[in-house]
Each structure stands twice: as structure tokens, then as C-alpha cells.
């Protein structure tokens, strides 16, 4: 039985894990960098250990140092959270070697999930559809053409050494293929001196839909419904919701069975997420398995009633999952907005610094997981996620309205946030109608619409602004007058 968990993480997820452990009477060990000296996870854990400098490589990614703390604190388990070492199989192996329970899959299973080609092969074997394409590198343009004809145009030619849009071409016909093949080869050789090309079906407008997965050490596997995470920027999720507006019960069950197959194919244990791309034609294609607790797990907690961190601990303890697939019933609708410290208008550049004041929203159906408190600091060393605002409703509309309300109540002083962006998105007809896709922001001109919204807000506030200026300039004049002002009470009120 796990009795003391070291949390190899920081921020909101460290606090999230501490909450469940505390409620279960399990001791917690926090680790912290120089930068996190005044962070809440340090205060809320049973014990806290300093592990190094601010840079992640010198602290939260420092496996040896964290192992030292595991051993000196007597922790018998490690929760990796997400990010940092959470999908590092070397670290999972290190824990295994030191007889410390790593709360997650085995190192071997994690390795398999992390190797895209191997994982894809395992999925094909388990009859989990992946994006159609060449099973391996193609040797020349002719082979590429042959495969393109098998899977149907449009296709993508991708150099495995490419990235950031370079070494990728979308091809619509046989005629275009030869030239595109040469271009991609050339770009790749120019960039890295070599080329190796894959052919893959091009999917124009996709949705990101993922399934929560749980598998115990006895081989019992369940899925805990889907989450739709299509609203993204630069491949990073912004808004997640469950259920997905385009997943009906038949689809949920059908894809859910694939999820169970996928988990078995890689001998997965504990909680994980199977990500799919859903094409416009309704097909689901396996993307990858995230071998950790996901940022967006609270929406699944809301509709399932489960405490997923507790489930992780139970599975890590070797207990069988205490329910069957058929016991799980989806209850209501949940939405999560990731409240990031970033400037939407500067291409989502991080915005960091001290937070003199913050008001955290609350109310029926509202949950906010955050590390913020008045007087804290948003550090430039770590990711921009400050808070996860999650709302639940009996209907989608109720969850949406509660989210809008909570976004309005959320006040964070000191940094730019993604809150205004989310208010704009949640008010669009497209969002209300569930017209989601991974290119949602671009497709519906969201940034432009946000600018309009802000302009409109400014206009709405003009009377209040003038009134404030009138009062302030009166005050300002009285300040520059002599000290024997006509209205001493007013002055003292202003100065206090």
C-alpha cells in the first residue's frame, strides 16, 4: 500500500495530486526549485525538499536529485504529473529499479507508446485504424505514387527529418507527385543533409478526440468516455469538453472498444489517454497514447464522478478497477478552459511576472485548479498554464453559460491571459453549434473577432472612463492646490 507519494512536479497538478492524497491520508513529498520557494505545493505537502535551480534541467528534470529525495524522504511512490518526467521511461525504470512505485505504466509500455513507428505497428496488429499511409519509408517517387493511389488523394509527402512545415507537401494528383517528391527531398537534404520520406493521407479538417483509459494490473480495461480537444493554438489545446458534440452513444461504444484494444496492444497499466484524429467523413484514426494523467482530466471527473488521481493510486496499489465498463454512465456536460499567461495578440507569447491580486471564480458547477494566489509570481521558467477553469452543467448550454460567467469573474492582475479569447470563442455561434476543428481559430477568424470584441468593450466603458477621469482630475487639482484645501475630508479619503 502506498503511504507516501513524492510528486515530481509543480504548479496546479502538484496541488491536484496533494488534494487527493491528503483526503486519503497518504503523505506527500513536494520538490521545489529556487523559483518555487513560495509556491503553494511547497506549503501544502507533508514534506518539501529543495532540488535545485529554476531551470527545469537543474530541478524538475534532474532524475538523480529527485531519486535522492525519494530515498531520503522514504517515499514509496512517485506521481509524475504531466510534462517534466511523466513520460520519461528512463525515470520510470529508475523508480522500478529502486523498488519505488511509479504511478503510471511500466517503463516498457511507456517506451512502446513513445516510439511512433512501433506503436503504430502494434495498433495495426490490434486492428486500431491509424492514418492511412506507407507502413515505412518509401524508396522513390514511384512507390510513393503507388501508395497514394492505394490510399487516395490528397496525400502528404513528409520527410521524417522535416518539421515546422518544412519538408512537407500536400499532393492532389499523380501529376503533382513527381515534382513534390523532388522538392521535399531537396528541402530535407538542404536542411539536414539527408532525406527519408513517408506518404500519409492528408486529412483536411480534423477534430482532436481522445479517450480516457484505465487499465489495472489484472488486465481489466475500461474507457471513461471521450474528450474533444479540437480548439488549439500551435498544436496546444486551449478548450476541452466532454461529451464531444459529434460523438453519439453508438460511436462512443464503438471507438471505446478500439481504445480497450489499443491499451491491451501495448500492455498499458494505470491511466492514459488514447488520442484520435477524427476526419470530416466520420472516420477515427489513432494518433498516440499519452502515458500519463492529462491536463484536462477534470472534465472526465465531472461527468464520471470519479476521482482519477484516486483511481491512479488504487491501480498502482495493484487493486482491480472497482467498476465495470457498463457501470459507467456519463452525467452532464463539462468544459475546461486552460487559463494561460500569454498575450493572444503577440502570437500567444508568454506573459510573466508578479500577480498582486487574483480573484478565483467559484459557484455551482465551477471548479478551478490553480497555483495562483494574491502575491504569487508567474515564472518564465515553466509553462504558461496558470489555472484550469472547469464547469459542469446538466446540459451543454448550462456548462457553457457557467463557463462564460466564471471567465467574467476571473480576475488576474499583472499578466496578459487567454481569458478574453475564451469569452469570444464561447460566444460564437460556431462554438455553440459544435463546429469544432483543430484549425478553429483560423477557420473562424477568431483573433479578428476578439479584436472587435475588445473595441466594443472599450466603447461600452467610455462613460465610466470619463466619470473616473472627471473625479481623478478634480482630485489631481486639489492635490496641487495648497495644503489648506477646501475639502480636507475628501482629500484624506483619497490619500488613505
Amino acid at each position, binding site marked *: 500500500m502506498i503511504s507516501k507519494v513524492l510528486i515530481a512536479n509543480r504548479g496546479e497538478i502538484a496541488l491536484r495530486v496533494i488534494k487527493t492524497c491528503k483526503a486519503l491520508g497518504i503523505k506527500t513529498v513536494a520538490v521545489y526549485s529556487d523559483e518555487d520557494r513560495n509556491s503553494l505545493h511547497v506549503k501544502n505537502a507533508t514534506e518539501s525538499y529543495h532540488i535545485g535551480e529554476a531551470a527545469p534541467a537543474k530541478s524538475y528534470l534532474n532524475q538523480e536529485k529527485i531519486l535522492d529525495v525519494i530515498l531520503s524522504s522514504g517515499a514509496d511512490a512517485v506521481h509524475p504529473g504531466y510534462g517534466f518526467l511523466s513520460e520519461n521511461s528512463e525515470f520510470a525504470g529508475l523508480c522500478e529499479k529502486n523498488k519505488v512505485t511509479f504511478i503510471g505504466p511500466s517503463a516498457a509500455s511507456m517506451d512502446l507508446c513513445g516510439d511512433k513507428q512501433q506503436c503504430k505497428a502494434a495498433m495495426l496488429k490490434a486492428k486500431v485504424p491509424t492514418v492511412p499511409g506507407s507502413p515505412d519509408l518509401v524508396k522513390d517517387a514511384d512507390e510513393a505514387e503507388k501508395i497514394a493511389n492505394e490510399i487516395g488523394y490528397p496525400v502528404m509527402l513528409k520527410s521524417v527529418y522535416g518539421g515546422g512545415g518544412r519538408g512537407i507537401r500536400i499532393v492532389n494528383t499523380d501529376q503533382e507527385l513527381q515534382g513534390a517528391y523532388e522538392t521535399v527531398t531537396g528541402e530535407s537534404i538542404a536542411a539536414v543533409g539527408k532525406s527519408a520520406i513517408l506518404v500519409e493521407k492528408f486529412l483536411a479538417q480534423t477534430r482532436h478526440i481522445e479517450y480516457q483509459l484505465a487499465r489495472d494490473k489484472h488486465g481489466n480495461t475500461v474507457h471513461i468516455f471521450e474528450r474533444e480537444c479540437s480548439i488549439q493554438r500551435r498544436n496546444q489545446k486551449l478548450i476541452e469538453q466532454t461529451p464531444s458534440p459529434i460523438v453519439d452513444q453508438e460511436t462512443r461504444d464503438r471507438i471505446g472498444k478500439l481504445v480497450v484494444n489499443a491499451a491491451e496492444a501495448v500492455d498499458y497499466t494505470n491511466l492514459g489517454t488514447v488520442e484520435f484524429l477524427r476526419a470530416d467523413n466520420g472516420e477515427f484514426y489513432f494518433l498516440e497514447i499519452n502515458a500519463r494523467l492529462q491536463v484536462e482530466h477534470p472534465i472526465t471527473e465531472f461527468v464520471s464522478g470519479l476521482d482519477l488521481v484516486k483511481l491512479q493510486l488504487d491501480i498502482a496499489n495493484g487493486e482491480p478497477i472497482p467498476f465495470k465498463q457498463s457501470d459507467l454512465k456519463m452525467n452532464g456536460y463539462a468544459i475546461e478552459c486552460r487559463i494561460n499567461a500569454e498575450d493572444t495578440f503577440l502570437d500567444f507569447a508568454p506573459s510573466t511576472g508578479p500577480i498582486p491580486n487574483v480573484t478565483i471564480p467559484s459557484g455551482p458547477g465551477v471548479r478551478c485548479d490553480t497555483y495562483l494566489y494574491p502575491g504569487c509570481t508567474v515564472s518564465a521558467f515553466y509553462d504558461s498554464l496558470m489555472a484550469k477553469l472547469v464547469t459542469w452543467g446538466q446540459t451543454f448550454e448550462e456548462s457553457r453559460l457557467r463557463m462564460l460567467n466564471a471567465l467574467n469573474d476571473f480576475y488576474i492582475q499583472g499578466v496578459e491571459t487567454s481569458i478574453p479569447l475564451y469569452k469570444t470563442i464561447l460566444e460564437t455561434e460556431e462554438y455553440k453549434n459544435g463546429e469544432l476543428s483543430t484549425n478553429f481559430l483560423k477557420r473562424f477568424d477568431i483573433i479578428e473577432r476578439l479584436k472587435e470584441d475588445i473595441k466594443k468593450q472599450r466603447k461600452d*466603458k*467610455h462613460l465610466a*472612463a*470619463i*466619470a473616473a*477621469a472627471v*473625479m481623478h482630475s478634480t482630485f489631481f487639482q486639489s492635490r496641487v492646490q495648497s495644503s489648506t484645501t477646501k475639502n480636507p475630508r475628501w482629500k484624506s479619503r483619497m*490619500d488613505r
Partner: protein
Amino acid sequence: MEFKLEDIEETFNGEIINKISNNEYLIKIQDKEHHLQILNINSRGMEFLLDNHFHSVNYIENQTAEMKIVVDGVPLTVNMHTKLDEIVYRNTGGADTGSTQINLRSQIPGKVVSIEVKVGDKVKNGDVVCVLESMKMQVSVKSHKDGEVKNLKIKEGDSVNKNDILAEIE
């Protein structure tokens, strides 16, 4: 007092017209009266009810002519002294009859946004010669006399200092 807001063309007249009680004021903005109830005030900001609607204002930056404020979380810039046009006009000798001065000088530093006349144009006292941007406001520089534009010393985009000659009008 006059105020101008970023993004909004209109100029707003605003003043306190009555102090009802310690924290209660009657103010007038553009000929309409508004009731202002202060809930909380200090040098950094104010919380108040304007016609019973709550607003929270923080003063971020404050110069005599320009005030950056955040109203209910929305950042705004308020410009005061929007009568600058008038001030500039008067200071150049405008509205005085029979100025014999040839040089039209700028009374403020700023950037030339547009030039409204060409050399050789006939202008009357008060006609706009050029527009300067200063303190985030556009200020029209008007001719100080009737006459003909003999020379233009500026082009669009130029920065001018106070007292620089903009044009010669004879």
C-alpha cells in the same frame, strides 16, 4: 473639462456639478447628468456606482494630458485638454486681427500627420494648414492670418519641435 478617448472620435465634456453627500456626486457628461456613488477610493483607483452600475477603475499612468486607466478590466487611455487645437491656434496669434507675422510656428512638439495646403494656396485666418499628432491626439494647426502659403517647411511624417516653423504665410 474636456476628455477624449482612444478609438472614439467624439470629445466629451465632463464636470462635477454637485456634491450630494460625502461619497455621492452629481456629474455632467455631455449635458447628461449622472449619479456617482463612491464605494472605495485611494490614489491607485476607485470603486464606484455610476447610475447604480458598479465600476472598478485603476489608474495606471497619469500625465497632465493623458491618463491610462483600466475600467472593469478593460485598459483605456483618456486624453484631457482636448482644447489643444484652440490653445495652439491662440498661441500662434490666431483669432487676433491683422497679424503681420509671416512664420506659422508649432506651439507643441509632434509628428506631421497630414498637410492640408500647397504652396501658393490662399488661406484665411483659422484655416487648417496641417495636422500634428501629439500626446496621442491629433491637433489641427490653423493659419494665424489671411494670406498666401509662400513656403512649407514640413512634409508628412516629419517630427517637429515646439516653435519650429511650419509654413510661411504672407
